[in-house]
């Protein structure tokens, strides 16, 4: 296959970037999208040009590191998949593909296609946990959790924290990411003791990071590589409202 790439190149956070064209003539359809970038970088290096910087690690769709905005869609044309799971058989010979980084104020570009997603870590630090020290747990089977509850918690917990939801949202809202964690712990009995405070703190941190508001268009869920459901946003809103009515813990 012959592919034309238009790739966002930006030296660092403080400089301006632009799209640069690259022509690839020998692309196999069994190649993964990132392997095509490996081939591109190999040829750029041999020619004495700077290779393209992009985030990637596990290359099997679970670590959440890869983050390319491909032809206007986070992780490209497939649904329910990350960039690293995308293969060139999803494209046609002669295609032009535009590749950009995640675009959001809370995700500044580090270089080329790589962005800073530390805001997500700070949101989890604000309350995305059950406060239990090592060694103080009861026997695992003392907490009975019906299968349907465990399954729903698992659906939420499947989030890989890649940030596609933010990239997909016209407001760059992080609601799907935040709600996945709030919802997982709100469903499970282990999360009950802190459920009100958690919703308040995590939402407060999300706002402080500069993510936009949610207008419930559902783009995030469609583009989410783990297909996290909008139900979790609904549950988080309920948690948050309940917390605002009942708790006197947190400002904001």
């Amino acid at each position: 296959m012959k592919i034309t790439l238009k790739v966002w190149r930006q030296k660092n956070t403080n400089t301006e970037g632009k799209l640069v064209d690259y022509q690839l003539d020998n692309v196999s359809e069994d190649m993964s999208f990132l392997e095509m970038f490996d081939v591109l970088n190999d040829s750029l290096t041999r020619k004495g040009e700077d290779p393209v910087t992009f985030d990637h690690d596990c290359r099997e769709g679970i670590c959440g590191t890869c983050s390319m905005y491909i032809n206007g869609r986070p992780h490209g044309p497939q649904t329910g998949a990350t960039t690293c799971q995308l293969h060139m058989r999803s494209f046609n010979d002669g295609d032009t593909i535009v590749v950009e980084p995640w675009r959001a104020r809370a995700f500044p570009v580090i270089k080329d296609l790589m962005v800073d997603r530390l805001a997500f870590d700070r949101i989890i630090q604000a309350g995305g946990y059950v406060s239990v020290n090592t060694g103080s747990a009861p026997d695992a089977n003392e907490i009975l959790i019906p299968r349907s509850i465990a399954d729903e918690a698992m659906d939420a917990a499947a989030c890989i924290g890649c940030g596609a939801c933010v990239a997909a949202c016209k407001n760059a809202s992080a609601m799907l990411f935040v709600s996945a964690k709030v919802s997982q712990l709100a469903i499970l009995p282990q999360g009950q003791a802190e459920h009100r405070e958690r919703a308040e703190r995590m939402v407060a941190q999300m706002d402080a990071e500069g993510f936009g508001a949610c207008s419930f268009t559902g783009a995030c869920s469609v583009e989410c590589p783990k297909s996290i459901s909008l139900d979790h946003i609904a549950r988080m809103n309920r948690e948050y409202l309940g917390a605002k009515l009942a708790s006197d813990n947190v400002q904001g």
Partner: protein
Amino acid sequence: MKLESKIPEGPLAEKWARQKFALKLVNPANKRKYDVIVVGTGLAGASAAASLAELGYNVKAFCYQDSPRRAHSIAAQGGINAAKNYQNDGDSVFRLFYDTIKGGDYRAREGNVHRLAEVSVNIIDQCVAQGVPFAREYGGTLANRSFGGAQVSRTFYARGQTGQQLLLGAYSALSRQVANGKVKLYTRTEMLDLVVEGGKARGIVTRNLITGKIESHSAHAVLLCTGGYGNVFYLSTNAMGCNVTAAWRAHKKGAVFGNPCFTQIHPTCIPVSGHYQSKLTLMSESLRNDGRVWAPKSKEDAQKIQKGQLKATDLAEDARDYFLERRYPAFGNLVPRDVASRNAKNMCDEGRGVSKTGLAVYLDFADAIKRDGQKVIEAKYGNLFEMYEKITGENPYETPMMIYPAVHYTMGGLWVDYNLMTTVPGLYALGEANFSDHGANRLGASALMQGLADGYFVIPYTVGDYLATIGPADKIPVDSPAFKETEQKVQAQINRMMSIKGTRPVDDLHKELGHIMWEYCGMARNAEGLQLAKQKIQALKKEFWSNAKIMGDAEEMNQALEQAGRVADFIELGELMVDDALNRNESCGGHFREEYQTPDGEALRDDEHYAYVAAWEYQGEGNPELLNKEMLEFENVKLTQRSYK
């Protein structure tokens, strides 16, 4: 060097309890006077950092990823073992201990493995309390499945994403301590050297991957939780960034390296499709609970399949060879990984492989789907089937999966004593980074168990003993000569790499190394091939230092420079792996020397001469490493030829 394993006296089942009592304690008010560095934030690192911070120590945690949540533990699929015996099927701490020792082909320490089995039950409790959504039965109790090398169901799981859920649990505990101010997190930061002064580990020198800045960090103790070195093979199931650099540079500062040639080749991975391939994807071992492994009985059928003239589903039942079930009726498709891998390789060597390359066998779910219905199979393995289809473009509900073995895990690693301390006082190694618990072959679902055992339930006790012994004043500042010298050495190596300005991209050199390792030090090894590999690796080292090409600057984000440092270390490690494989004139577990096999092709151990840990000591650039031996003593199990028939 005299290696002291420090395994406590007394009956096996009492050793850990006795040790816990014998270890010195740091009183609660004094813990805040100690600093601990944790490198790596996977299961071992995140659990250790969180647990030590909870106790009151000041922790600095480092990872090369952009977030601690992305460490490669996240990719573990199938499950985590624990001797809970919730299924009432005859499991016990002793049975888990026994299975692990036997599975490791009698090359692990009894004391360590028994402790691992003991604390396994606490791990499940801890993870459930954190909100890890393990699979459940309808009544709400925990569900289990079985894994290779065991005849009981003791594996706990969260769909096909067990590693992810356990890591997110540990990450959440870590995040809580970051919020409490007890852990300071350094992401996109790579450890490039260990600082040793006065015979003790004093801290580390790091590179900030975004700015390129070289920095020093001082502490009372350093914990390496940096995972395995499977990427020495270039193609493996490891993440692209997994590397040996932290462990290797600690090795060059005095930490001896245990059993480097013990590598695990996982039988169920998606086969290689082309030369551009960057990584291999694992299909969880849990699939072997329901999938049946087979190859065509005749070479002629296999050739037709390779050419695309015949499909798997065209082959009648009596034209298929379910070779694992045939050869190992007791364990069937659930034999340990090394056995399954070698058998698949043999099929392909005989010309009975499938796929275009002839390097694959089938993993077939047709019977399971017929028996349980597609819905049940989908509930168990849905995400794995999807993953397979995305990569290969084939639907495994309709046509059997094609699988081939791939490098997956490294049992070798930094040598540690019972307290997880390396031969450098104050330097510890946890999880896959150490060599200790899996012998020559790791059983499925035991890596997650070991990582969390080390981090949650071993290091919080053992590190306190060292800290109490040295006292809070025994720490040196980052502007002391030892740190400055190390910084200069790190900077000099970076400058040297940037100034090579050759013609070959680093990735290309890495590929060549991987090819050498896979060809001569992979699933099967022999003395002749290993000798050849040694020469090839030495030539590659010269090629690297004279012809590598790295674009960009060192004072900015530079992924090629990061990889160059890692590849330079992999090349040196590769040579040591070959030396180790040459030294071990026996076959055991994942180490299969073709010269040493039973008449029916099983690994043939030599307990009289090789029941030891090969612990290699660095002797300076260009000198052969010195072999130290820690003899393994077996008091509770009888060494037998491993049989899964």
